[in-house]
C-alpha cells in the first residue's frame, strides 16, 4: 500500500512529488506522456530561472528527470480506471494495479472531445461515457462501444455481462487485441436518431443501436474521476481550499482544476497539494 499515488508527471505532479519526498513520504508518480507540452517545441520564455528560453517538452522532461534523480519512483503507463475500497484507492493502469491511501490527480488537460455530429445531442440520450453508471439501462439491448485499446476492453468486459449483442466500433483504428464481439472498423460519420439515438452512420452503412458507449483512447482524469463521483464542472475537477475533491483522500492540482493554464500556477498548486496531502495523512494516522 502506497501513501500517495500521483497521476501525471507535469509541473503540478512532479512538484507535489518533490515536496512530499521532503516530508519523508515516498510517492509513486505515474504519467503517460509529457502532457500539454509533449511535442511542444515552442520556447517557454516566461518561467522563472531560465536565462535562455527552453523548449516546452524539454522543460517537462527535465522535471521528470529531476524527480528521478531525487529518488522518486516514476513510471510511464496509462491509468485506465480509478476505484475506491475501504482502505483507499485502486489505480489500474494498462500494465498493473496499484493501491494507495491518497491520490493526486495532476494529469493536465488533454481531453479528447469526440468530434462526431450527434455526439452532444445524444449524450445521455443513448450515448454514455460510463459503462458502470449507465449499463443497467441497456440490459439485453443492442449496444455499440466505440474504442480500440485497453480502456475499451475494460468497459467492454463489464458490458458483455449485461448484453450479448455488442458491436465494437474502432472508428478507423486498429484493435489492440482479438475479441469475440463483432467489429466495425469504418470511420464513424455521425450519430443519428430522434429523441434518442437510433443509428451509427459510417462510410459503409448505418447500424441500428439502442445505446453507444464511448471508450476511445485512454480516459482523461475527468473521465475516471467522474466515474468515481467527483464533482466536475465545466470540465474542471472541483477542489476545496486544500486541493481536496469531494472525495476524502482524493486531491487534484494543475490545469485539471482550472484557472490559469500556466506552469507557474501548476507548480504552486503542486506545492500546496503536497502540504495538504501531508497533513491529511498525518491526521489520519493520528486518528488510527
Amino acid at each position: 500500500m502506497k501513501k500517495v499515488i500521483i497521476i501525471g508527471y507535469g509541473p503540478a505532479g512532479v512538484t507535489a512529488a518533490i515536496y512530499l519526498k521532503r516530508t519523508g513520504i515516498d510517492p509513486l508518480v505515474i504519467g503517460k506522456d509529457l502532457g500539454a507540452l509533449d511535442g511542444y517545441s515552442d520556447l517557454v520564455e516566461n518561467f522563472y530561472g531560465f536565462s535562455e528560453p527552453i523548449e516546452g517538452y524539454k522543460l517537462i522532461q527535465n522535471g521528470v528527470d529531476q524527480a528521478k534523480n531525487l529518488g522518486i519512483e516514476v513510471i510511464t503507463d496509462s491509468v485506465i480506471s480509478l476505484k475506491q475500497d475501504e482502505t483507499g484507492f485502486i489505480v489500474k493502469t494498462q500494465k498493473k494495479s496499484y493501491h494507495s491511501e491518497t491520490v493526486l490527480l495532476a494529469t493536465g488537460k488533454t481531453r479528447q472531445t469526440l468530434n462526431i455530429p450527434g455526439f452532444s445531442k445524444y449524450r445521455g440520450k443513448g450515448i454514455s461515457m460510463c459503462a458502470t453508471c449507465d449499463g443497467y439501462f441497456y440490459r439485453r439491448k443492442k449496444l455499440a462501444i466505440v474504442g480500440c485499446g485497453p480502456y475499451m476492453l475494460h468497459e467492454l468486459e463489464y458490458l458483455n455481462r449485461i448484453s450479448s449483442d455488442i458491436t465494437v466500433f474502432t472508428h478507423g483504428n486498429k484493435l489492440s487485441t482479438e475479441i469475440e464481439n463483432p467489429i466495425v472498423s469504418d470511420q464513424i460519420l455521425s450519430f443519428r436518431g430522434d429523441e434518442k439515438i437510433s443509428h451509427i452512420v459510417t462510410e459503409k452503412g448505418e447500424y441500428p443501436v439502442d445505446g453507444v458507449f464511448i471508450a476511445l483512447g485512454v480516459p482523461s482524469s475527468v473521465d475516471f474521476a467522474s466515474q468515481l463521483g467527483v464533482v466536475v464542472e465545466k470540465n474542471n475537477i472541483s477542489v476545496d481550499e486544500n486541493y481536496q475533491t469531494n472525495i476524502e483522500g482524493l486531491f487534484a492540482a494543475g490545469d485539471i482544476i482550472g484557472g490559469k493554464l500556466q506552469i507557474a500556477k501548476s507548480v504552486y498548486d503542486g506545492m500546496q497539494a503536497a502540504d495538504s496531502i501531508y497533513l491529511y495523512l498525518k491526521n489520519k494516522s493520528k486518528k488510527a
Partner: protein
Amino acid sequence: MVLHLTTENFEKEVLQSDLPVLVDFWATWCSPCLRVVPILEELDKEVIGLAKVGKLDVDAEYEIADQFGIMSIPTIVVFKNGKVHQSVLGVQSKATLRKLLEV
C-alpha cells in the same frame, strides 16, 4: 429531509408542488450517485421554504424514470410548475444545483 420519491407520491410532491423541486435520479449500484447524497442533504437545509429536494431510485421507480427518458445517472432535474425546467448529468456542486433551482 430529502424527499424519498416514489411512483405513488411523485404527482403530489413534484408535479403539483408550488415550490420548485430538484429531483436526483439515482440507483444503489451507481457509485458516483452515492456521492450526490451528502450534497443533496446540505442543499436541502439551505433551501428550506424556497424549494424541495428529492431523490428517486430508477430501479424501484422505473416508470417515472422511463417517463422522463432517464438513460444516464446521476441525472438531476429541476421541476417547476409540474414541468421539467432544466436538467444536468453527473455529480454537481451544491452551488451549481442551487443555481439550477434559481432560488
